[in-house]
């Protein structure tokens, strides 16, 4: 694609990504309260959870939180590819994956790096393609960042990497709410490794 075309497409992308961000942050508001939680305050942090990104999975793959708890996530990318850490519902992740697919198609997101110049380009209307939703971080190999997040109430949440293909290949983790752990009998984790001919 030529440069002109690329630039012509940028505003459309900005719109798409922004609307995604709002969807992620506010959509659940319609159903009464922030179901996925909200950005937390430093002073409320009760504990820190280290999350390591690898190609293509997390360590740990499951975390346990309490409703109302504020947690500092220290996220480090120890893989060789770009990864995301995003707190949301499965539906939100699915919607965000389409946006990230666009970022790949338009050359903003490469396998092992982010084209920051392109991503942060000011489109003249105050918008950019910055991936700066408060519930997520997008990290290049070797990068580390923190998210302080308050889980206001129990919800069906996952942390996930929405770089195209990564979530589907299994780069996601479960967020268990301690009060509801027993209720959630989800089959998860290790492969049963069975083969039938």
């Amino acid at each position, binding site marked *: 694609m030529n440069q002109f075309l690329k630039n012509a497409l940028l505003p459309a992308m900005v719109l798409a990504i922004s609307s995604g961000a709002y969807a992620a942050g506010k959509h659940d508001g319609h159903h009464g309260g922030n179901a996925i939680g909200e950005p937390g305050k430093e002073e409320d942090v009760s504990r820190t959870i280290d999350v390591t990104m690898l190609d293509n999975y997390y360590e740990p793959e499951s975390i346990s939180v309490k409703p109302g708890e504020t947690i500092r996530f220290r996220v480090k990318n120890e893989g060789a590819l770009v990864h995301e850490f995003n707190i949301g519902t499965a539906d939100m992740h699915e919607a965000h994956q389409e946006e990230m697919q666009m970022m790949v198609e338009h050359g903003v997101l490469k396998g092992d790096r982010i084209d920051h110049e392109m991503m942060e380009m000011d489109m003249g209307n105050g918008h950019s393609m910055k991936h700066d939703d408060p519930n997520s971080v997008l990290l290049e190999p070797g990068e580390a960042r923190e998210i302080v997040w308050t889980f206001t109430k129990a919800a069906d949440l996952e942390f996930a990497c929405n770089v*195209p*293909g990564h979530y589907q290949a299994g*780069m996601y983790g479960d967020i268990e709410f301690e009060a509801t752990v027993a209720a959630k009998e989800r*089959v998860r984790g290790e492969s*049963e490794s069975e*083969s039938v001919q």
Partner: protein
Amino acid sequence: MNKCILAVVLAGLMPFQVFASEYDISVDRVQIDTGDFVKEGIGYNGASPGPVLRFREGEEVTINVTNNLDEMTSIHWHGLILPFEQDGVPGISFPGIKPGETFTYQFPIVQAGTYWFHSHSGFQEPNGAYGAIVIEPEGREPYRYDREYVVQLTDKHPHSGDRIMRNLKMSADYYNRQQQTVGDFIDESGEKGFMATLRDRMMWGDMRMMKMDIEDVQGFTGLINGKGPDQNWTGLFKPGERVRLRFINSSAMTYFDVRIPGLEMTVVQADGNNVQPVNVDEFRIGVAETYDVIVHINDEKAYTIFAESMGRSGFARGTLAPEEGMTAEVPDRRDAPLLTMADMAGHVMDHGDMDGMDHGEMTDMNHGDMKGMDHSDMEGMDHGGDSLPEDPFYANGSGLIPTAANGGKFLSYQDLKAQKPLYEDREPTREIELRLTGNMERYEWSINGIKYEDADPIVLQYGERVRFKFVNETMMTHPMHLHGMWSILEVGEGKWNPLKHVVSVAPATTVYMETEVDAPGQWAFHCHLSYHAASGMFRKIVVEGGPDSPVADGKQSGNQGGES
């Protein structure tokens, strides 16, 4: 006879426990029932396909292969990196396994992923001698899934391999059932005019090719894990699960376009090597390739695994279902694609004396004759309009460029990027050009115009990095398989270029691959279409030097068997 049955029973009971390091395999005459026909064939441990061998990366395996046939046999461990004496190609790696003899293979497992094994003797592989290999990685899998299945495809033909080869030699279009007929000619004349249609037919006739020449051998039944479409191999799942499917194409001749209507597939591995995950709706699996995909199934319903042959002359079908017996709709096959002028662009044309025609020997285009071609005709051919998809691994305007049945994403080689590069990226030390050549009418296939039996080996030096340039001058697609060393497919991604063991080269295209020459000894290198390999599209590779191996002398030695 009793002994034979006992061996089969024991084989079924004892070996093939997960991660055992010693295996017994018997090579047996078996019955193969496709649902359409029952045919005597060759199998392992009493069945075709043979067992799924489960190895673990890092272990040393010992495999005792007992030949219960009345002819020589061999097993090649397709895609495995191992000492060349263990590679199982008669005449190159070892002499072969005599009737009644037990040969013991022993080698370390130095990789992980999905592979397969098959006989490298005569046409035993198309006759049923194949099985799957699954290697668990030393560490964890870089994915999450709840269960997995091997999905091994083949194109089972009612004729034996020897008979098919004889028939092809007698008449290359023996099995081409979709030949254009007089009726087609009249129809097309109505659309395009009589002269244009006539010129079109004459041009293709001159090339000893027909537009339908996508599949040499039609009339097969597509099998999944040994089961025909009506026998419907079924893999069970629980709703909500992620299922890993290890697709292996063990066909003699057939490429398949694979889809699971209603499910997106995430490709995570190609030819045993992890790739950066790609979401697709459909993919094409060349002969001898493997692709691993993960599907996430939420609904409590059945899904059809549908694998149409590239030329649409046959299909394989299986089902993923929450319980046995559930089925989903089986789609109709799409229309057969037609080759276009673009597919013959790499083809050497000589409109003069046809008797002297041998594509291999004719390195130069006859430009005088080229001028004689009426280019206005070419415009009118199935050259494709603006709507045709593009894929650098097909000629521009090729009739073979695949599209997904649902209009979605079809996997291309250019989507394949290594998940974790195995080698440092470096400049190749030299380039070797290999023209893929042939004469369709005589059913002769060759490399640089020279058949295997007349060719010197390709000599490589241990430690070099060689760039192979494949130029496909034929109108067939050739899945080129290098034994013993990885084929680093050039997709323009530098260090992320994927590692493969089969590189498919479409008609009229040039494809590059690089190889780190890190395996001393002598190796086979050939087109994996059984009847192309057997008729000469085959080379021996000799790797001279090495860390601890005697220097190979580069001479051809003795029996040059190892067809297919």
